[in-house]
C-alpha cells in the first residue's frame, strides 16, 4: 500500500509522553513534512519533558531547549547563525505549546514575526498548561474545566473566550498562517510543504488533544480532533498573503456531540452549549466571508 504521508521517521519510540498523546503526533507529522534538515527549538512545554531525562533524545534532528518566553528570539538567532554558516537550506522550527505561544511567549513570537525571519513557528494547541497539571491558559476555550477553573458547587469554568493566535498572526501581517489537526496528517504535511515555498515567517497552529487534561479515554485522541473540525470548533484554514482558504467540514456535527465526549465540558447545560454553537456558527460565517472578500493587511516592503 502506498503511504499517504512520508515514511521517513524522525521521532523515535521510547519517549515519555502520556498514552494517546496528541502533541507527539503533531511533532511526528511536522518532522515528516520538514525533513532531515531541520532544527527544532522547544520552550518549557510538554515537549520539553517528552524526550526523557538528560542523556536521552527522541528526535533525530537537533532540538534546542529555550526559556519559556524566548522561542521567537531563539529561532531568530538560529536562523541568523545558520545563514552565516551557509546553511540556508535548513528549516528552523519553533515548537511551542499554547501557554508558551498565547501567553508567555507572545511578545517574542510577535517580535520574530515582525522582523520577518525565514522561520517556522508551530503552536501545538492542547488548550491548557498540560505539563504542569492542566492550568487555564489564554487558549483554553469557553466552558472548559481546568484545575484553576474548577467546577464544584460553584460553576467556575472558564468564562472567557479562546484567544486565537492564528488570527493575531494574520492581523500582524505574517505571510503564511494555517491551522491543522492531528486527525488530518495529509492536510498538515501539505500545508508545511506550501509554507516551505514562502521565504519569511510562517505560523501553523495545530490542535493536539490531550487525554490527561481533557478527560477522555486515550484511544479517542484522533477521533476528538476530527470532531473538533467537523463541529466547527476548530476550523481548518490556510492564509497566504491576503487570501484565505477555509476547509469546510464534509460531515458536519453539532457542538453538543463534540463536548459530550470530554469530561472537561461535562458540567455545561443547554444554554452554555447553545452559546458555544452560536459563536461557532458566527465564526464560520466570518471566515467564509473573509474567503470571499480577502483580508487587507499592510503589504510587506
Amino acid at each position: 500500500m502506498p503511504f499517504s504521508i512520508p515514511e521517513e521517521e524522525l521521532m523515535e519510540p521510547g519517549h515519555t509522553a502520556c498514552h494517546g498523546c496528541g502533541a507527539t503526533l503533531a511533532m511526528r507529522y511536522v518532522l515528516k513534512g520538514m525533513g532531515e534538515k531541520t532544527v527544532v527549538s522547544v520552550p518549557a512545554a510538554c515537549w520539553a519533558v517528552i524526550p526523557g531525562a538528560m542523556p536521552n533524545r527522541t528526535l533525530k534532528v537537533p532540538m534546542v531547549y529555550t526559556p519559556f518566553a524566548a522561542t521567537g528570539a531563539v529561532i531568530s538567532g538560529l536562523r541568523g547563525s545558520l545563514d552565516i554558516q551557509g546553511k540556508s537550506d535548513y528549516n528552523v522550527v519553533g515548537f511551542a505549546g499554547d501557554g508558551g505561544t498565547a501567553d508567555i511567549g507572545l511578545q517574542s513570537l510577535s517580535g520574530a514575526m515582525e522582523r520577518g525571519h525565514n522561520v517556522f513557528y508551530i503552536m501545538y494547541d492542547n488548550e491548557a498548561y498540560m505539563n504542569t497539571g492542566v492550568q487555564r491558559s489564554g487558549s483554553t476555550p469557553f466552558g472548559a474545566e481546568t484545575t484553576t477553573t474548577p467546577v464544584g458547587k460553584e460553576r467556575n469554568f472558564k468564562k472567557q473566550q479562546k484567544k486565537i493566535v492564528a488570527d493575531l498572526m494574520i492581523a500582524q501581517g505574517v505571510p503564511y498562517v494555517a491551522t491543522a489537526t492531528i486527525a488530518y496528517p495529509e492536510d498538515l504535511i501539505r500545508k508545511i510543504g506550501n509554507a516551505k515555498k514562502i521565504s519569511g515567517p510562517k505560523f501553523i497552529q495545530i490542535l493536539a488533544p490531550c487525554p490527561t487534561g481533557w478527560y477522555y479515554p486515550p484511544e479517542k485522541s484522533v477521533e476528538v480532533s476530527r470532531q473538533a473540525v467537523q463541529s466547527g470548533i476548530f476550523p481548518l484554514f490556510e492564509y497566504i498573503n491576503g487570501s484565505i482558504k477555509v476547509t469546510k467540514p464534509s460531515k458536519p456535527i453539532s457542538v453538543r456531540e463534540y463536548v459530550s465526549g470530554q469530561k472537561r465540558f461535562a458540567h455545561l447545560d443547554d444554554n452554555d452549549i447553545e452559546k458555544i454553537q452560536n459563536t461557532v456558527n458566527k465564526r464560520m460565517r466570518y471566515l467564509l466571508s473573509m474567503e470571499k472578500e480577502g483580508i487587507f493587511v499592510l503589504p510587506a516592503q
Partner: protein
Amino acid sequence: MIMAPIADVSSRVNHTDSWRIQKPIIDYSKCIRCMICWKFCPDACIDVVDGGAIAAPSERTLKMEAPVIDMDYCKGCGICANECPEKCIEMVLDEKGED
C-alpha cells in the same frame, strides 16, 4: 567546541512496555494493510515489514508490507484499534509475565 550539555542517547533505551494495561492484537486474516494504525501511532512503534509469512484476507494483500507492533514500546493507548477501518485490532488485557 561543545558549549552546552548535549543529550545523545536515543530514547530507544527506554522500554515503555511496562506502562501498558491493554495490548493490541492484530488479526492479520482481516487486515487490509491500509497502514492507518501506523499513521496514527503516537509512539511511532508500528514497524512496516514484508508480510509474506503472515495471514492475509487475499493473495494480493499477502504480498504487501504488513504492520507489526513493537511490543517493547507500545504503551497500549488503543488509538490503532479505535481508528482501524476493518476493526481487526483488538485490545486485550496484558497480564504480567506474558509477552
